[in-house]
């Protein structure tokens, strides 16, 4: 090899190696991107599976409750134990809240514009420390028969502020079933008082349920006959599930409806579901 050609082999090898490295890096990068995308899809699928598992556990517990405790529903029963504060599971984190929808006044009762429903709403608005015109605005917005799908819609429909809606939220709900009775065992004292309109009886029931669940036998022992619109049990429950796996987060609020068929078989199904925050 002549003196001036020395080093050509090294340059050629370096060029070939550079080309090889470029191809390998490009392929590895694409492979990593595909792996990451698949991982994200997997996380989302697992978060959804966790959410479905939470819903199924609630449905199962509520259907079972129709067999084990059909006469009264309240705190301390097995269905309340499916609730789960945020906990780490092998996949990520999981939270489940469950509550009795019959503990709250159903605003959709106002779509039929009955005086009794308007009166109950007036009392609840007063209990929430809101001015009486709030009740009038809500009643006017719903009097046309428009079914409310979410409490938050009281903002655009009735002109309520976010603070007013937050103050009302513990006492009201909006279920797709009208004239659903209120459960004495789970209703808050203001809701119970608004339905009963009898402070003495309200106090007696609240004091008694603090000791144990009010069943038909307990009512008999107390010599109390419940007025219409009040019951000791419920067939509608609310559910809030949050599941997080990796970067994926799934949150859903659902309404559960349960019933016993003519053969005595219990059923519990999701009657409504909304993805996103409660």
């Amino acid at each position: 090899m002549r003196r001036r050609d020395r080093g050509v082999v090294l340059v050629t090898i370096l060029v070939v190696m550079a080309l090889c490295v470029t191809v390998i890096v490009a392929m590895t990068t694409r492979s990593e991107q595909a792996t990451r995308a698949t991982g994200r899809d997997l996380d989302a699928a697992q978060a959804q599976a966790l959410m479905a598992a939470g819903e199924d556990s609630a449905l199962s517990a509520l259907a079972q409750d129709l067999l084990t405790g059909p006469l009264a529903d309240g705190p301390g029963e097995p269905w309340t134990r499916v609730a789960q504060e945020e906990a780490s599971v092998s996949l990520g984190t999981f939270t489940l809240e469950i509550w009795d929808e019959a503990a709250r006044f159903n605003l959709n009762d106002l779509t039929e514009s009955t005086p009794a429903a308007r009166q109950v709403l007036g009392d609840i608005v007063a209990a929430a420390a809101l001015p009486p015109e709030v009740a009038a605005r809500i009643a006017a917005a719903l009097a046309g028969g428009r079914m409310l799908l979410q409490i938050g819609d009281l903002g655009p429909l009735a002109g309520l502020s976010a603070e007013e809606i937050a103050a009302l939220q513990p006492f009201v709900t909006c279920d797709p079933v009208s004239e659903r009775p209120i459960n004495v065992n789970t209703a808050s004292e203001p809701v119970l008082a608004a339905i009963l309109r009898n402070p003495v009886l309200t106090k007696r029931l609240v004091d008694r349920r603090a000791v144990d669940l009010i069943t038909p036998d307990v009512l008999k022992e107390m010599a109390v006959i419940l007025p219409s619109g009040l019951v000791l049990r419920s067939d509608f429950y609310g559910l809030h599930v949050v599941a997080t796996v990796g970067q994926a987060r799934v949150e859903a609020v659902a309404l559960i409806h349960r019933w016993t068929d003519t053969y005595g078989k219990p059923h519990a199904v999701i009657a409504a579901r909304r993805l996103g925050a409660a």
Partner: protein
Amino acid sequence: MTKCLRRDTLSGLTLVEVLVALMVFAVIGVAAFAMLDQTLRSDRIATARLERLGEVQRVMQIMAIDTVQAVPGTLQLQPDGISFLRRGRMLGGVEGLVVAYRLAEGSLWREIGPASAAPVRQVVTTGVAGIVWRFHAAGLDWQAAVPGPEVDGVEMVLTLAAGETLRRVFVLPQDVFDPVLE
């Protein structure tokens, strides 16, 4: 004898040596190119397949998000697809969005928007040859027509232009009924 075997340091390679070296390099080069070309082609095909699979999965994911939030009793079969009301809000409106899935021009279209406004139209996937919808209700078999407000499931059989068939069942929230009246 000894002189014949010794090569002058300034002399080059013989023609035969150069030709043999070129042939060896040519064979190695052709083999390497063929391997690289095959690898790149496989990568292209795999990527295209994965992208298509991902697109179909996204379609199913979007439809699952819509159907799990469906308002019971609002599902309707249209000449070119289905429509229903679902939970959620857009444009600062009230809760409730009208959603429709339609097959048009070989693509699956999704329309979504509040009942009071024109819907947003988007292609969710292309290359669709046909869709068959069927509906389920408790105690009934799968039907071609919506059996009524008690419908609790929708089956979608998607035939892609490439000939593959995909079947997916979406479970719907169920209508609240009064068991006493049943």
